[in-house]
Structures are given as structure tokens and as C-alpha cells.
């Protein structure tokens, strides 16, 4: 059997850190990114620079600490977010586009035409800074399939290198992932971003990769919002001998052992809120 080459986008530092109760300091973010880089992760989604000064500083240091991996900055679909990401030196500017009518209507309070227009403005801005653009279809699982096709066509036209298919609320099944990807026009690399709300993030990622995705998003220990993201270790176990991510399972396990006290520091130490912050 031919072992296919695929790639990991590690989002421990972005989606993983959004897990309630998990938060990293600047130093910890840099240490985790350096370790992921040495592990063989292809792309590291290091955070959201729009969060503020410390996040931007972390990006600059991560950029210097990583020798191989390309560093992704996550952005909402707005120019201020993207400006922050460009200024802190990210390699790849990822723009997250709400794709379902539910998110477009309820969260953005916009319509589909406005989304396409705003996406175009964001892409132009990214290209003006000579940065690689990737586009994420947020809530693709609940989006209208025709609109996904339109968004994909627009992403290709706008010169995006990768299209992220996000099962934002983790409700897809492997067959649904396959059906979704089969409808997406060719001409752009695909990335599968699965959440574990129904315990199927690993299976859905595998099906996404088998259906043609080049990248799979994952996190250390599967941490992430709600029930978490695709667990990198579990993905490697389940695809052993079939897919090659350039990451050795033994190395990953060792890394997780080392990083566990950092990632789950709230379980290892019981501290009260720093008194230095209360004494003013």
C-alpha cells in the first residue's frame, strides 16, 4: 500500500488555547511552538494577533524560534485584525469567513453579498503586504452547498493557497465530510478542521484527508473549545501505515509528556489569583 504524504496544521496555540481553563504565557507559547516545529509540524497556527500586544510579541518570538514550520495568524474577516497579523510578521494570514447563513445573519448581521465583498477587501489587503493568504469556511457543515462553491470560486480567484473546511460545531460525519468535499471545485489545496462534539473529529479528519484534503488541523491532547479539536496523537495512531505527516508517534508522545504540565498547569498547581495583580 502506498503511504500518502499529508500535513498537519497544529492549532494548539489558537483553537486549543480557546479551551476554557487553558491559557499560555508568552514564554509558554514560544516553547510549545518551538517543540512543534522540531516535531515536524508543517504549519503552526500560533494565535490571533488582534488579541493585543502580548499576542503580537509572542508571534514575533515564535517566528524567530521556528526553523521549519510556517506560522499562521488567525483573523476575523476584518482589516484591523489583518493589519495586526501583518505587522507581527506571520507567514500566512488566515481569514475566517462565516459560511453558514446562521452565522452570517446572527453573528455578522450581514448577507452573503456583503460577505463576498468583505472577503475580497481582506484578500486585497493581504496581497498588498505580499503575504500568503488562506481562507477558512467557518461552520461549513451547516452552510448552503451552493454558497460553499461560490466562496471556493472566490477564494481561488483571490489567490488563496488553501481553503479550510471547518466543522465548527462538530456535527459532521465522515460521509457528510466526503459529500461536502466532493462538491468543492478543484484548484485550491484543502484543509480539514474538525471538532469533537460527537466524538468523531479523528474519523472526520481521516475522511477529509482521504477525500482529498492536503492538511488536517489538530491539537496536542485534542484540547479546544467545548469537546475539543482533532487529537493529534489519535490521528497518528489511526492513520499509521496509511498517511505520513512527517511526525513520529513516539516523538509526539514524549513531547506531550514534557508539555503536559505547561498545557494543564491548572491541574498541576493550585494557586489563587496573583495577589500582585490585586494589590494596586
Amino acid at each position: 500500500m502506498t503511504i500518502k504524504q499529508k500535513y498537519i496544521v497544529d492549532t494548539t496555540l489558537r483553537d486549543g488555547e480557546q479551551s476554557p481553563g487553558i491559557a499560555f504565557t508568552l514564554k509558554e507559547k514560544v516553547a510549545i511552538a518551538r517543540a512543534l516545529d522540531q516535531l515536524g509540524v508543517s504549519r503552526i497556527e500560533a494565535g490571533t494577533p488582534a488579541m493585543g500586544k502580548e499576542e503580537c510579541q509572542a508571534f514575533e518570538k515564535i517566528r524567530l524560534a521556528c526553523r521549519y514550520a510556517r506560522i499562521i495568524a488567525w483573523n476575523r474577516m476584518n482589516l484591523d485584525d489583518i493589519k495586526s497579523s501583518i505587522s507581527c510578521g506571520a507567514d500566512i494570514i488566515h481569514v475566517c469567513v462565516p459560511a453558514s447563513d446562521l452565522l452570517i445573519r446572527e453573528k455578522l448581521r450581514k448577507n452573503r453579498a456583503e460577505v463576498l465583498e468583505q472577503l475580497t477587501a481582506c484578500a486585497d489587503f493581504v496581497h498588498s503586504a505580499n503575504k500568503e493568504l488562506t481562507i477558512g469556511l467557518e461552520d461549513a457543515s451547516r452552510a448552503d452547498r451552493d454558497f460553499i462553491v461560490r466562496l471556493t470560486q472566490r477564494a481561488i480567484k483571490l489567490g488563496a493557497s488553501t481553503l479550510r473546511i471547518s466543522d465548527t460545531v462538530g456535527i459532521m460525519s465522515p460521509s457528510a465530510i466526503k459529500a461536502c468535499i466532493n462538491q468543492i471545485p478543484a484548484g485550491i489545496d484543502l484543509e480539514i478542521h474538525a471538532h469533537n462534539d460527537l466524538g468523531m473529529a479523528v474519523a472526520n479528519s481521516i475522511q477529509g484527508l482521504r477525500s482529498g484534503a492536503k492538511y488536517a488541523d489538530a491539537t496536542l491532547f485534542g484540547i479546544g473549545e467545548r469537546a475539543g479539536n482533532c487529537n493529534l496523537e489519535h490521528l497518528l495512531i489511526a492513520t499509521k501505515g496509511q498517511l505520513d505527516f512527517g511526525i513520529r508517534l513516539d516523538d509526539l508522545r514524549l513531547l506531550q509528556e514534557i508539555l503536559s504540565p505547561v498545557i494543564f498547569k491548572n491541574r498541576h498547581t493550585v494557586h489563587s489569583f496573583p495577589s500582585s495583580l490585586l494589590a494596586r
Partner: protein
Amino acid sequence: MVTIIDRTLTALHTNQIQVQDLSHFCDLLFICGVTKIELPATLAARLSLSGLSGNTGAAGTCFLIQKQNGRQQLFPNDLVEQNFSGNALPDIARRKIRLTGMADLISRDYRTFFEALLHSGATTLDLCPSNSMHCATAIALEWIFAGGSSVSCAFSCGHDFPRLEEVLMGLKLRDSASIVGDLSVFNQLRNLYEKMTRLPVSPMKAVIGTDIFKVESGIHVDGVLKNSATYEPFSPQTVGSQREIVLGKHSSEQSVLYKLREQNLSETGAKSILKQIKEGCSQLGRNISDLELYALASEVKNDHQTEIYC
């Protein structure tokens, strides 16, 4: 209607568990939509169930509890387990079979395999895939979506079967009419499971984890407050739980304002409070408690008053 067999009790050391808890556990399983509960002979002897007149068979034998006319009754489990790991499907025509193994099925052409199973001529065909490759729930659900009529699962983790709560929720989200159970007992089931096993269920365990409805990041809080369906696959009430907005490194000013209002605290200095929350939570790697928010809000308020009156 799909047959859902729960095997949790076959995977636990039940000797030390009180009969009262075991009976309650079975009651809750039936309420959430389980069709049959599998249990070992030793346990069947401890539960006062009608059906076998005290004859619970040899050690190692398993039985099934099934509800008939509103009463739980014991039946012999006549499914023959057959492990499947290869490509050639064994001859299972006219047999009552439970197929196990198949851990890597998602990495193969499972649809063709399911088609072959559906045309195998088996009298009864129950699937209980192994979870050694973390795909058992997906295999079980895909089997049902393909037309399969029976799956075996078990509650929570600590076993090698599909997760019952994930399978039931997967079915409910796909077609709410496909299951008759009330999933709001999941919260009670988890508490009872933890009591019986003396092992905590992971807070982020899919469907039943205690933290899965905690919302911290500003983007998600914004969405959930506008319409909870934006970032929730199902409502917390569906599984007997509640949503909680928590404050941490990823919170926004809007989240802080929401929490201050919720706690009846002064909204003065929300920006300053947020800054301190972000710093403190990064250092501790956790969220801020309501008590800590109260302390922070009081400090900031005092500072503002000092500035005004000095």
C-alpha cells in the same frame, strides 16, 4: 427503529457497586433511549429481574435486559460474537451475529463493506466496532446511516466500544425522530457513572463533559449571546446541563460586562478588569472565579472612587 444495546455493565467491575445504583443506572439507560442492556451472568443474579426464573446460566454468559410492557425482563443474549479484521466477510447467513473489531474501517471503503453486510443474509446483525483507533462512534453511526439496524455501545470511556452518548446524540442531530429517548438524563448518568466507577469523566468529554458548555473566547461569547446555536451543536438543556460564560485570557470587554451584570457588580473599570484577568489567567492557566471577579471589581471601583474624591 434502531436497536441500541448498552454494554457498560459488561466492562465494569460491578462487585463493589450497590444494587440500588446498578438498578438506577439501568433505569436511566432505558430513559435515554437504550433498547437493551447487556450484563454478565454474575450481575444478572444480583438484580431482581423476571424472565429466567432464577436460572442465570453459567459464569461468563451474558444476558440482555429488555423492557416489555413497562417492565424490565431478562433474556439470554443469543448474539454470537465474531471478530472481523480482514477483508473477506465470513459467511454469516441465517445467523445472529455481533461483529467486533473493524477498528480501522474508516480508513477503508466502509460503504462497500456495509453494503456487503446488509446483503449477508444474517438473521440479526449487530455492530460493535473497536475504539482502538478512536473511530468507533463514527463507524457505528455510519453503519446506521447505511441501513444497519443494531449497534452495541457503552457509556462514557474506559472500554473499547462506541460511546453510547455520542451515538445517541449523533442520531438525534441527524433525525430527532430516530430515537425516542430523553437525553437530558445524561447529566445524571455521568454523575452516577462517576460514583460507580470512582473515576472522573473528562470535563471535555464529548456530549457529557462538565466543561463543554463553558464559553470563554470573546468571539464565541459574542455569538452565543446573539444566538446560542451559532457555536453550540445542541442546547445544554438537551443533555441536562447549563451554559456558563467564563472569564479568561480570551475574554472580551463585552464578556466582562456581561459577567459584572450577572453578578450585580459595578460596570466601572471593565477595561482595567479585563487587562488584569488576561494577565492573571495566563499565569495560572485557568479561568477566574466569581469570587475573584468580585475582588477585582471591588479593587477597581475603590481606585476609581479614590481618583474622584482625592
